[in-house]
Each structure stands twice: as structure tokens, then as C-alpha cells.
């Protein structure tokens, strides 16, 4: 028998990130837990960025999806620690990002942007594979893109611009 929490997790597969609609909130790794309190379900979420404007929309989407499945009532709680990292994006999520035209983040190591504390000037970012043609002949245009979580790149072979989900 499928439990209530398992059904809730399944319902969350259908809740897409409003800013990267290729990914579900589960793919992104921001749903940390679903707890059955009997009277209600608790969905524990960890925000991606402090100022992510999608946080409230995601909360509402999560609660609506659970209600639509008839699993409610539910409430969403925020868990800030440990801080969200792109390492929590599932492998499936990374594949979906690439297919959507966004270069997925690589695993975060201390030497990488966003995780390092030392200043490195004129650092050439690691070569990224273009999500359109696969070429690694690419360059970064700006460390900030259309949303806080992405950087702007372009491919020097197929000439297409693309975004990179920054490892953080």
C-alpha cells in the first residue's frame, strides 16, 4: 500500500520551479522532508537563494498539489540549515536542465565559484559544454544571469547563448 507521504512525494513531482519550469521542486532538491503528523502533512522546504522570488510561489504550488491529491491539510515549513546547494539537484534534474538548454552545475568543491573564500583575479571559469551542440569551446559573458541562480555564457562554435546553473 502506498502511504500518504509517498503519495505526497509523487504529487510533488508535478510541482515545477516557476523560474526553471524544466525542473520539479523534487529535482531541485528543495523538498527536504514530508512528515505525516496525522492531522496534517508537513512539507519541509529549503530555499535556494536568500532573495529567490519564487520561494512563495513554490510554497503555494506545493500546498496546492497536495490538496489536489486529497492529501491535505498540509503546511510548508522553511528549513534554512544546512543551506541549499546545487549538489542536491538530482542526476535526472541535471539531465533535464541540459535538455532545457541550461548547462547544469558541476559538483561543488571548495575551489569553485561561490564556495571559495579567496579572491582569484582574472580566473578563467572551467570550460562548460554547450547544452545545444556539446562543444566545450565556450565563454562566460557574466556571472549573473536572468535569475540569481544562473550565469550567462555563449558557445563559440554554434554561437548560441546559453545559461549555466551556478554551482553554489
Amino acid at each position, binding site marked *: 500500500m502506498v502511504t500518504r507521504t509517498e503519495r505526497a512525494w509523487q504529487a510533488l513531482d508535478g510541482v515545477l520551479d516557476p523560474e526553471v519550469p524544466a525542473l520539479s521542486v523534487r529535482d531541485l532538491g528543495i523538498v527536504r522532508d514530508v512528515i505525516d503528523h496525522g492531522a496534517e502533512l508537513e512539507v519541509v522546504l529549503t530555499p535556494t537563494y*536568500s532573495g529567490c522570488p519564487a520561494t512563495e510561489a513554490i510554497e503555494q504550488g506545493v500546498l496546492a498539489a497536495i490538496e489536489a491529491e486529497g492529501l491535505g491539510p498540509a503546511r510548508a515549513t522553511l528549513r534554512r540549515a544546512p*543551506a541549499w546547494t546545487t549538489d542536491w539537484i538530482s542526476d535526472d534534474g541535471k539531465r533535464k536542465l541540459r535538455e532545457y538548454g541550461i548547462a547544469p552545475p558541476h559538483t561543488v568543491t571548495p575551489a569553485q565559484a561561490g564556495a571559495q573564500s579567496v579572491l582569484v583575479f582574472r580566473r578563467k571559469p572551467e570550460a562548460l559544454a554547450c547544452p545545444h551542440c556539446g562543444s566545450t569551446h565556450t565563454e562566460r559573458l557574466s556571472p549573473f544571469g*536572468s535569475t540569481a541562480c544562473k550565469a550567462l555564457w555563449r558557445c563559440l562554435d554554434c554561437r548560441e547563448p546559453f545559461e549555466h546553473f551556478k554551482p553554489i
Partner: protein
Amino acid sequence: MQPSIRIADAPAVQYLLRIGDTALILAQRLGEWTGHAPVLEEDIALANMALDLIGQCRAVLTHAGALEGAGHDEDQLAFLREERDYRNVTLVELPRGDFAFTVVRNTMMATFFKLLWERLGESSDKELAAIAGKAVKEARYHQQHAADWLVRLAGGTQESRRRSEQALAELWPYHAELFASDAVDEHAASTRLGPRWSELQEPWSAEMAQILQEAGLAMPATVPFLSTGKRGVHSEHMGFILAEMQHLQRAYPGGVW
């Protein structure tokens, strides 16, 4: 019109307000660049950094309201205080100036915030430590971005170098306030809420020296000047920022998105 609120003088609350208000007012200044930055990529970058700062500010002000225990939420704290009750450093309220001025200020402030968030990650206050754990990653991006731009401007044209030097000379005297500790800092240190800001001066100076050296700019001399924003005595610019920030909440009390 919505009347103003007052907030408790409790040192822990005041310590949090200094952090939240400094992020809030800097974000407001960065937001002014939207649609006006010299290149599109930078327009986006400045807005992104403003958004990170707003997010950090929201979390800190919400927590300050909870610590105070008088039922004030982030919006009331951000929009319904009188000028004298804002605790941001004066440095962040100075008008945005030209792009060089913004880049120099961002370099100074992102370096400060990065060091502060690193220390707050060890706060005895679990909520503050959790907020810091996220914010420090964002501050590192901000610092690297601002420092890269400063190096670029200082090594660019004669004009960009002249403007960088001028911005540095104008802004430098205001950094002293960041590191002037008082009873609020002593309380934070003794309860392990966070560091005395004076403890951040040495690492800040070292990182600024590294950046300025890379940019080929001389570190300005220290002058006997201490701004007073942290105790609520602000520059003449502050009232104008607040008028713009607050008019909607004052005119339409309790309005939400």
C-alpha cells in the same frame, strides 16, 4: 496615514537591525541602477545582487522581530520606522554616484558582509547561523564580481581610472564606522550572537589591500572621521531614500503583494 512603530532597544535586536538595515539600504541603492547600468549584463548583475541583499535583509528583520517579541514583521520593520530608528551604516546610504562609485562601494561592502557572514555562521543563535550559512555564499559572489570590476576600471581608460580613484577617496572615510564597536557589539560578543565588528577590521583591510594592489590603486590614508548611521544619526540623503521606500506602506497601510 500609517503611524510609525518603535522597536526595542535590546542589544541583540539592535545588532540584527544593523545587519538587516545595512543590507536593505544598500539593496535600495543598487536597485536604482535597474535600467541605467552601463551595460545590460551589469544591469542584471546589480539587480541580482540587490535581490540577494533584500532576501538576507528579510530573513534578518523577520528574526529581529521575533527576538523583540512585539509582533513586528519584516514589512513593518522595513517600512514603518522613523529615520532615527534605522541602524544602517552611513556608507550605504550615500547616493549611488557613477558606476565607479557603485563598484568601489560594492567592493567595500561585499568584503565586509562576506567576513561578517562567515563569523555569523558560528553564532549561538541558530536562526542567525542558518541565515549566514546561505548568505555567505552569495556575498562571495558579490565580492568577486565587484573586485573584478574594480580591477578592470582601474586598469581601463584614463577616465575610468580617474573615476575609480575619486570614488575610493570619497568612500574610504566612511569605512571607519563599520569597525567602531560599542555596547551592542560587546553584548553580541559576550552572548556569542556574533563578532564585535571591530574584529573584522584586520581581515577586511587585508582583503581590501589585496584588491587595491591588484587594481594598482593606493589605499587612502585614514582620516579622523566617524559617521554615525549605526546609532541612527544619518546623512541628509537618508530621508529621501525612506520617503521613496515608505510612501506606499504609509499611504496604503498593510498593503501586500
